């Protein structure tokens, strides 16, 4: 193995203090394969009490060392320890290279995530390696909700979408390998489709600062990346399998990576997952089975000055939705709320019946880069995305098996990005984005379209710059302009069109108009701009501070503009408004972090003010032949969201470590002076971890408070069997709850050999009965009970 662990002395330098009694050792720890700095590595001078930890640039310094020969030991969490001999006859500057070949899959903290972001003034949080592996079988929403300030909006356990600082859907940009995932932009029950087994790192930027990717992500940006190639002749990969008792689920995935020293690389992953009905502590959650298949492949060339790659992926899921949640109007909801347990409970099975979602997400991408001596790095990308969503309801007659919603959303994007760093470390980035999107609803559903057929064109341009002001300070700024044009055809109910008096402003849209129905040709354009200003101070010894001020603006999406009618899966009538203007948000956030040493922490307060915030709120009930339906209307208002995220960790000794998280926020509709709906309640998370050699164990307590700030949107309906008008309580949040989770893991770490890892994880260990405010099915059933998962990962 020593062959791998060579070290080379570079830049030996004499400072001419040979007469001095003490010397210093100044060093830099770099990754052997790609020469990236290794931050957070512990450096020990054996035989002395001297220790140091490398900073973000991989640098460390030891002073006051008695001259002599020493052994230096370098320990990095993801690497084999390196020992090297140094001869300190004078002050020494030396670079150390450490090998982490076998951990390429984990994509070690090669660079602090901060530096990878387009703006250095961002603080970002990253999940990688083992944390992603442990989330196998779950969703990306669940995975990133480990980060403070991030929560999940759920429709049962199969449909999970991320909420960042209280905002979700089109206010969160999900980037998968550089492509913005479009399938999660609209409804609360449209979850992003991402295959976790193919990912090596997920970065979350809380806020709209990542202007390279979007200017409209008021909540934040989630950047998910697959494994990256390396310059080495190597073949590596992993096989993962897991079994779960709750739902009797199993999951398996294979990943293979081939790379050559010449820079050619290829990789593939394939995964499969199946699960039956899940179990709440007291009963089965009938029809919560799911099945998912996925694959992805990548091939390309990566060299210093030139590279390209082709990437493709597919993920298809069939997701069951709790049978008891399939309801009509408020009368049905009242019945379900009054019932002690779900009104439909059947025997366990793997059958996925209506209501269910069958969703497919395909991605194809070609990208390339070229390093030009004057222009800098020029990169370009074209991508195509195919999203199909079919939602099946319980229907009768010939329509059985016909989806009630059948959307095909296709997006085409091309972008060009130039990044130039001058000798003074000034970085300038600029780029252009051109996109085209089309949505088609299959008319064969026999249900009126909730989202009309449309085509939209997007053009965007951005300019980002970052400049060190001193040794400690970096400033960065960015500006982005987005232009969007939407054209489509929309059938309106004539009564609705007249009631809204759309004829006054949009009469030129009308193609034909009859008593009940009319056809219109909407044409809308929006131009918005967004910007950010960030200051980053690296105070040394792991202390860093960030200040960020940003402006984000988001054009209304087709759901907000055109919704009109019954949203079957939500059992509500949803009404959009074509008169909406873009919403504009201003956000200020601060971050204090200390990333190295025994104690690390991250304090992140933020405040956001939003003008023209589009929100969907209940405005009453409409009598239909199926009973009373709650009517939800989109409206624009002024809103504010402010809160704080706290993260802290402490290494108590060699074996024990604890970590702690607090997330707290307040969202207010300032126009009406009432709380915003569905804002995440405060959470506190404490984790105690132990590890010794090949064993590790952790215990986690996750406490979620009761959300006491909520608007009252209950509706009153006449219930014939009660002969009374009752209040249907759809507003009151459920009570607080605390969940215990524990995990035991056995991992062999032998570089160059097959590395097995076996783990046992128990979630909700006490089988606690609880309901989650952010789960839309909380009205109908308790959340999932205890779940025991056994998993194994083989890396080779």
């Amino acid at each position, binding site marked *: 193995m020593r062959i791998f662990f060579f070290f080379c002395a570079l830049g030996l330098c004499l400072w001419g203090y040979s007469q001095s009694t003490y010397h210093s050792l100044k060093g830099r720890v770099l990754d052997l394969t790609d020469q990236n700095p290794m931050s957070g590595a512990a450096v020990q001078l054996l035989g002395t009490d001297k220790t140091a930890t490398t900073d973000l640039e991989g640098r460390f310094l030891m002073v006051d060392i008695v001259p002599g020969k020493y052994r230096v030991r370098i320990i990095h969490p993801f690497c084999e320890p390196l020992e090297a001999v140094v001869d300190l006859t004078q002050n020494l500057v030396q670079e150390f290279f450490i090998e982490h070949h076998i951990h390429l899959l984990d994509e070690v903290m090669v660079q602090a995530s901060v530096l990878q972001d387009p703006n250095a003034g961002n603080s970002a949080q990253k999940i990688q390696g083992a944390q992603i592996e442990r989330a196998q079988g779950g969703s990306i929403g669940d995975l990133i909700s480990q980060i403070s300030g991030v929560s999940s909006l759920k429709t049962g356990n199969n449909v999970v979408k991320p909420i960042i600082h209280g905002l979700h859907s089109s206010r969160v940009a999900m980037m998968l390998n550089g492509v913005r995932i479009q399938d999660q932009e609209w409804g609360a029950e449209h979850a992003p489709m991402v295959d976790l087994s193919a990912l090596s790192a997920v970065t979350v930027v809380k806020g709209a600062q990542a202007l390279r990717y979007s200017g409209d992500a008021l909540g934040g940006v989630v950047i998910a990346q697959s494994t990256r190639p390396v310059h080495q002749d190597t073949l590596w990969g992993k096989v993962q399998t897991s079994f779960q008792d709750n739902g009797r689920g199993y999951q398996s995935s294979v990943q293979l990576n081939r790379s050559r020293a010449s820079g050619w690389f290829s990789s593939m992953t394939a995964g499969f997952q199946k699960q039956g009905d899940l179990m709440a502590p007291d009963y089965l959650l009938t029809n919560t089975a799911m099945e998912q298949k996925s694959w992805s492949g990548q091939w390309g060339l990566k060299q210093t000055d030139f590279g390209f790659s082709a990437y493709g992926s597919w993920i298809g899921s069939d997701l069951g939705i709790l049978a008891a949640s399939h309801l009509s109007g408020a009368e049905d909801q009242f019945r379900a709320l009054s019932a002690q347990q779900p*009104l439909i409970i059947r025997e366990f099975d793997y059958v996925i019946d209506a209501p269910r979602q069958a969703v497919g997400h395909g991605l194809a991408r070609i990208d390339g880069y*070229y390093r030009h001596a004057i222009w800098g790095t020029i990169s*370009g990308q074209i991508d195509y995305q195919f999203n199909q969503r079919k939602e099946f309801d*319980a229907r009768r*007659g010939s329509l059985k098996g016909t989806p009630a919603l059948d959307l095909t959303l296709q997006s085409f994007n091309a972008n060009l990005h130039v990044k130039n760093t001058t000798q003074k470390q000034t970085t300038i980035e600029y780029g252009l984005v051109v996109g085209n999107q089309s949505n088609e609803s299959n008319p064969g559903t026999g249900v009126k379209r909730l989202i009309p057929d449309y085509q939209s064109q997007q053009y965007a341009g951005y300019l980002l710059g970052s400049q060190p002001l001193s040794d400690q300070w970096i400033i960065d700024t960015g500006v982005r302009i987005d232009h969007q044009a939407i054209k489509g055809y929309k059938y309106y*109910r004539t009564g*609705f069109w007249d009631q809204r008096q759309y004829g006054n402003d949009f009469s030129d849209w009308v193609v034909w108009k009859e008593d009940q129905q009319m056809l219109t040709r909407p044409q809308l354009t929006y131009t918005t701009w967004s910007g950010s200003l960030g200051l980053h101070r690296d105070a040394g010894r792991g202390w860093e501070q960030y200040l960020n001020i940003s402006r984000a603006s988001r054009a209304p999406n087709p759901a907000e503009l055109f919704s009109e009618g019954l949203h079957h899966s939500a059992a509500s009538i949803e009404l959009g408004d074509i008169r909406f203007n873009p919403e504009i948000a201003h956000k200020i956030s601060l971050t204090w972090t200390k990333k190295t040493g025994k104690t690390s922490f991250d304090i992140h307060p933020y405040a956001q003010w939003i003008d023209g915030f589009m929100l969907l709120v209940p405005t009453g009930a409409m009598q239909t032949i199926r009973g009373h339906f709650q009517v939800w209307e989109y409206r624009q208002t002024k809103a504010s969201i402010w809160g704080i995220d706290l993260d802290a960790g402490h290494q108590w000794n060699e074996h024990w470590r604890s970590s702690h998280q607090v997330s707290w926020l307040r969202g207010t509709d300032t126009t009406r002076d009432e709380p915003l709906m569905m804002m995440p309640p405060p959470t506190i998370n404490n984790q105690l971890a132990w590890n010794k050699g090949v064993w590790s164990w952790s215990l986690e307590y996750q406490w979620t408070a009761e959300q006491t700030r909520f608007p009252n949107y209950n509706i009153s309906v006449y219930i014939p069997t009660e002969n009374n008008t009752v209040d249907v309580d759809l507003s009151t949040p459920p009570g607080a709850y605390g969940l215990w989770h524990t995990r035991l893991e056995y991992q062999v770490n032998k570089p160059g050999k097959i590395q097995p890892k076996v783990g046992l994880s128990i979630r909700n260990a006490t089988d606690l009965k609880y309901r989650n405010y952010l789960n839309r099915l909380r009205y109908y059933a308790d959340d999932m009970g205890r779940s025991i998962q056994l998993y194994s990962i083989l890396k080779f």
Partner: protein
Amino acid sequence: MKKLLFIYGLIGLTAISCSKVEVPEEINEEELITTVEVALSSAEDNVTLVYRDLDADGPQAPTINVSGPLKSGVRYVGSVTFLNESESPAENITEEVEAESDEHQVFFVANGFSLNLEYLNNDGNGQPLGTAFAITPTQGSGTLTVMLRHLPTKPNNGNPDTAGGETDALVTFSVNVQ
């Protein structure tokens, strides 16, 4: 380099120029129920109760018609018809309900008087369906609610509150029994 730019540009332009929106097909709600007709007949008189909402989930209010009062102590034989009148000719949804009788049940709830309900037709398993029924109302004035439930728990005790399923129709008539 220029070549690369050109290729990107070309593909980008192609993507944009390909975009034409065709007029999408008009969708008529197929399983929509716009109309519930309850016909009651006895030796002495015939009474019809009609609930009609042609724009369904749209903003227009329904029209509700009750042809006259009922007589107490008289046995009325009744039928319920579900129609989709947004189509022309109107679609009779009752036929589908009867064809899938094991997945449906009509429930009746009276307030202000007693119904004394009898189910006159059953599904294939001998459980009540209710598109044909009979009532012998007692004197009083109040409401009669007719509910069509899809996929209720069967057998059930006739109480729609605990029978589960999804409500496909729920209409309430003001009824006077003399």
